[in-house]
């Protein structure tokens, strides 16, 4: 494998890792606050649809992004209503939201565009264009560093950089602010937070809505950055891979970045190379596709470093009477 192929592979990995990373951080906020979110997939899908639709109508991708975030936040609100306000089962609520998104996107899409569940092809200002960082062209001549900067670091859409910046931001918010301390405490021991006079309901709703915003950006990137429009079921299990990455990362932001890049790399390898041989044995494509899930099960099994979820995850908080 030569250097340019390697850069091509890594470049593709970063693109494919971006929606995973945003969704994974969304799950991180939610689950750190004690609300398990298996509805990430549904939020990605609904955000992708509404961002592509709004971008197609208005021709402005930023309005598309806003629409995607709004749609995803509505879903988050529903999840919060079910699992926080009415103390329902968070897992069941998540499952319901996934189906709701899978159904609604096609039903509404058919009614609006009549293109078999697709949105019209997006062009120009209706898509997030790749941006070239300063000096990328000039530096191309420098050996190794030039192509690295030009091919890998430069030339992504703005949302890729936003996603990467979200990692330190998430870390800072969760581990260096009072808000983050309370958010994590709500996920570990809500009664203690309640005793301290902080609203558990308020904290959990905030966390769930932040997750909505992040999923909204991820969905918008899928439909207006990575591809040029919405296609039926375009999230294709990415929400679940993000969930897997979250467990893989043991609910920590920096590890989340690593896990998502790894899963992005697996995805990119699978789509760039049809035949992979490791030590003379052909590795089936399907194995590469299943690898994120297999790795997650192995991690969950606790054979390779134990993944311990937030203690109060999945348990509705009932205030003492």
């Amino acid at each position, binding site marked *: 494998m030569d250097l340019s192929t390697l850069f091509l592979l890594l470049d593709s990995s970063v693109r494919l890792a971006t929606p995973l990373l945003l969704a994974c951080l969304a799950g991180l906020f939610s689950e750190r606050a004690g609300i398990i979110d*298996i509805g990430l997939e549904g939020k990605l899908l609904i955000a992708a649809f509404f961002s592509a639709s709004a971008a197609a109508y208005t021709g402005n991708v930023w309005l598309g992004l806003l629409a995607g975030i709004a749609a995803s936040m509505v879903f988050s609100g*529903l999840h919060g*209503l*079910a*699992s926080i306000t*009415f*103390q*329902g*089962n*968070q*897992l*069941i*609520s998540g*499952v*319901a*939201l*996934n*189906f*709701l998104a*899978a*159904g*609604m*996107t*096609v*039903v*509404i899409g*058919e*009614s609006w565009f009549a293109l078999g*569940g697709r949105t019209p092809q997006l062009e120009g200002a209706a898509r997030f264009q790749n941006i070239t960082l300063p000096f990328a062209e000039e530096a191309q001549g420098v050996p190794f560093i030039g192509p690295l900067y030009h091919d890998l670091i430069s030339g992504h859409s703005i949302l890729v950089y936003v996603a990467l910046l979200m990692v330190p931001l998430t870390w800072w918010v969760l581990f260096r602010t009072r808000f983050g301390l309370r958010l994590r405490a709500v996920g570990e021991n809500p009664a203690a937070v309640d005793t301290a006079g902080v609203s558990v309901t308020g904290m959990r709703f905030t966390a769930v809505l932040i997750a909505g915003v992040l999923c909204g950006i991820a969905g918008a990137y899928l439909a207006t950055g990575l591809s040029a429009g919405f296609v039926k079921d375009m999230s294709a*299990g990415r929400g*679940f891979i993000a*969930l*897997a990455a979250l*467990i893989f990362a043991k609910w920590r932001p920096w590890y989340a970045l690593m896990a998502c890049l790894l899963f992005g790399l697996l995805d990119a390898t699978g789509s760039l190379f049809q035949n992979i041989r490791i030590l003379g044995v052909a590795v*089936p494509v*399907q*194995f590469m*596709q*299943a690898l994120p*899930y*297999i790795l*997650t*099960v192995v991690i*969950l*099994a*606790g054979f390779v470093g134990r993944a311990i*979820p937030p203690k109060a995850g999945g348990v509705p908080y009932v205030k003492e009477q």
Partner: protein
Amino acid sequence: MPDAANTRLAGLMVNLALVIVAAAVIYLGLRWMTAGVEALIAPATPGRDESWPLWAQVAQLVYLILSSVLAIGVMALLVFFRAPDLRDAVLVPATSIALAIIVTALVIIAIGESPLQATQVMVRGAIGSGYGWGYTLFYATNFIFTGLAVAVAFHARMFNIGGEGQAAIGGLGVAIVCLSVPLPHWSIALLAATIGAAVFGAAWAAIPAYLQARRGSHIVITTIMFNFIASALLVYLLVNVFRVPGSMAPETARFAEATRLPSAHDIAPWLGFRPSTPLNVSFLVALAACVGVWLLIWKSRLGYEIRAFGHSQTGAVYAGIHPVRIIMLSMLISGGLSGMMALNAVMGEAERLVLDPVQGAGFVGIAVALMGRSHPLGVFLAALLFGMLYQGGAELEFEMPAISREMLLVIQALVILFTGALDNMVRAPIDRLFLYLRKGS
């Protein structure tokens, strides 16, 4: 004792009479309202490419809400005065479903179609002909198996979301049995395939169950992961191992003619089933599974332990119930039931293993189990309703192309949302109503 027996019999007769009266009131009320709203909106029926005027849509919505209030209200009175125990089993699910129907109607209205017309098309398509019944019951068979699977796990307070993968691997079991063993007669083939399906389905549930029982890994996450792994595995096997040489299609060879399960047309042609009907003898296996699960959960020692464990893990452990054993057994039974879905879909209909033989039925099982309150009778009724929805939905797509087939997913999502996640929201007003009635009397 004859007096006591007489009193009980009299009480039963009164209850029966009241149920009949209530059903008649609901039926006549609905008929009257339907006729009224149909006459009202008839002059506003739009042409082919127009949509309904707003007032006609609002009239339909009001009709739906009023008819729900009528049906639920009559049921509530009956339950309150005659059978307060049935509040959770009848009234709460009925209200949830009414809410799901109303929201679905809102969606249909939003895309400019008529919910009333859609309902009529669906009901006619699902149960208006032998053809429709054949498909309705075929789908219901799938949903009974997957619904029972989720229900058994629910009793042990576990959420088996892996029905999709377990059923696919169950299909693998069916295919291996049917292709590798020369089976002389369909009855023997059915028996062998049932064992194959159940064992393979259970095996696919065994790893997540073991990880939950021994290592505490969350069963929901592991079963989701196993769904994806199953689908990748199936693609690999169909493309590389089972594919017929020279064929491009990723599917196994057709099963031998001797293993073909008798269809409803073979058994009961006088009921109006067509030769092409997919409904087959595995429907009877599904009914037997309902009875079996009922016996297991309510009449057996293991079932008692499963329920005890589901109510309180610490309590169960205190009573000498071994948690690892209960988690493993309930998940194995659950996986086995999911796997048996393949009898109907793989052996009964396709007669070969194709890519994605499950078609989302594993997930429908979640809605079915929630709606049926994890009781076999409830699961059967809910599966029948979802069978009607699926067959009716296919007809709907044909007759009203503006409403796409994915509307089924929306309905499924709303049923799961209202009967599962928003249960407390539905329950609270009913509790308040009962409290109010009690104060009044």
